């Protein structure tokens, strides 16, 4: 438990948060290596199945991050993502996957520092929560 390193899967939108992560990199801003980025074209294309799959295959937390309201490259993809996340937030806590393990954030392309800070905070929070599934023989 002390050496627990959380595994976080992040679905980041091509136009904002992925660019922000790139900016964090080019400006030599460090953030924990616990996060695995998956670039998607828009948060609106993140199917809840992707998130469920991540949790069932061993992720301790999932981050979905895209453009601020009004900035979506596809006009309203992030609003649709928000409704889906709301639904997941209603359903997953029934099975001890609290909101802290599934986050939606808006991080614009110029917010490299904010991206690094977000990952920092999330890793801290998840580290405190501990691993999600320890039973490797669980029905998945």
């Amino acid at each position, binding site marked *: 438990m002390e050496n627990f390193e959380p595994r976080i899967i992040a679905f980041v939108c091509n136009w904002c948060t992925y660019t922000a992560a790139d900016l964090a990199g080019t400006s030599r801003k460090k953030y924990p290596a616990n996060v695995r980025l998956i670039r998607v074209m828009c948060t609106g294309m993140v199917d*809840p*199945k992707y998130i*469920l*799959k991540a*949790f*069932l*295959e061993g992720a301790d937390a999932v981050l979905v991050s895209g453009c601020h*309201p*009004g900035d979506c490259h596809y006009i*309203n993809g992030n*609003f*649709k993502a*928000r*409704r*889906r*996340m*709301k*639904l*997941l*937030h*209603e*359903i997953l806590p*029934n*099975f*001890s*996957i609290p909101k802290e393990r599934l*986050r*939606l*954030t*808006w991080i614009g392309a110029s917010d490299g520092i904010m991206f690094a800070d*977000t990952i920092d*905070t*999330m890793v801290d*929070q998840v580290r405190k929560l501990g691993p*999600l*599934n320890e*039973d*490797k*023989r*669980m*029905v*998945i």
Partner: protein
Amino acid sequence: MNSYHAIGRNSYLDAARSFFKSLLETGEVQSLLVPLRQDRTNDIMPTLVSDPEDTDKADPFSPSFPLNSAKLVSRLTRKKNRKRVAVFLRPCEIRAVVELVKLKQADMENLVIISSDCFSAFPNSVFNTGFREKGEEFTNEYISARMSASFTDDYNGSISEACRICTDPFPGIADIVINPDHSDAKQVTVESKSDAGGHILAQMGLDEAEPPKDGKEKRKKVMEELGRNREETFQSIQEQTADLEKLGVFFSSCVNCYNCRVACPVCYCRECVFNTDVFDHEPLQYINRSQTRGSLRMPSDTMFFHLTRMIHIGLSCVGCGQCANACPNDIPLSGLFMSVADKAQKGFDYTSGGSIEENHPLSCFFEDELNDVTGI
């Protein structure tokens, strides 16, 4: 507004049958979908009747509930046509039709919905062993027993879990409601609930009747009882499935037959993603997953399937309990799905099957809303 009529015959069923017969004779509807006793077997299946004489085997009040007819209504109405069809539905079936209309899978334009207060249903396994053979005598006996004891009779042990925790056994959206009479075992009361229903009843030349008096009190009592059962069941289900590990135990006898999905009235995709090649994993993938974890229960993706179904239909679940009815290994799915659906629907302040006008929560969005969902 609402008009009330009474039909008296030798029994509840005979009275209901004479109503269906004269409904078809008016010519206002071309066909009627109604639960009907099949020749020789005594199975009660929804049947599309066009000849008025064929209504003599209709059995709308039986506790047999082999499938949710909303899917059949979708088949009958998914394309516009000139013929008008009447359907007899349980309240949960009406809710499912409403959801399907919102999901553009059914249409209400040429549909006349007839319903009654629901007397609860038995699981197939219970009805088919002992009650089916008793024939229509049993239906009359069952309704009398249920009504005289306000749903606290001995049959409570036989009814399905979903009915024990039903959210609303009284029809919300309907054109005509036909109910057995509390005070007289040989009479049904027919009520028009819409202009279309009133117009049809006017054609039938029925005797006028007084509105039933003690209805409201009895309804309140039934709803309270159901509410208590629901609370109890939800609590026990939540304890059984408190985390993913426990949920895995809950589903451990699931064989991925997907019968629950087929039986679900609001699971409407023509091709379910779980049947596509997305889930035809490469043989190597199974072995790799097993090597990573140490072992892999096969069939795999069981919990993934059920969680996905909760996401897909949680907002539309009408609590008919057909998922549990269809399960070959008797997993009590209805309690779990209804408890999760209850949370999901409350989160969006939405009631499935409540009204046609209300948008399905995932079919719309607003710019300024749900601000607590985002951020860390």
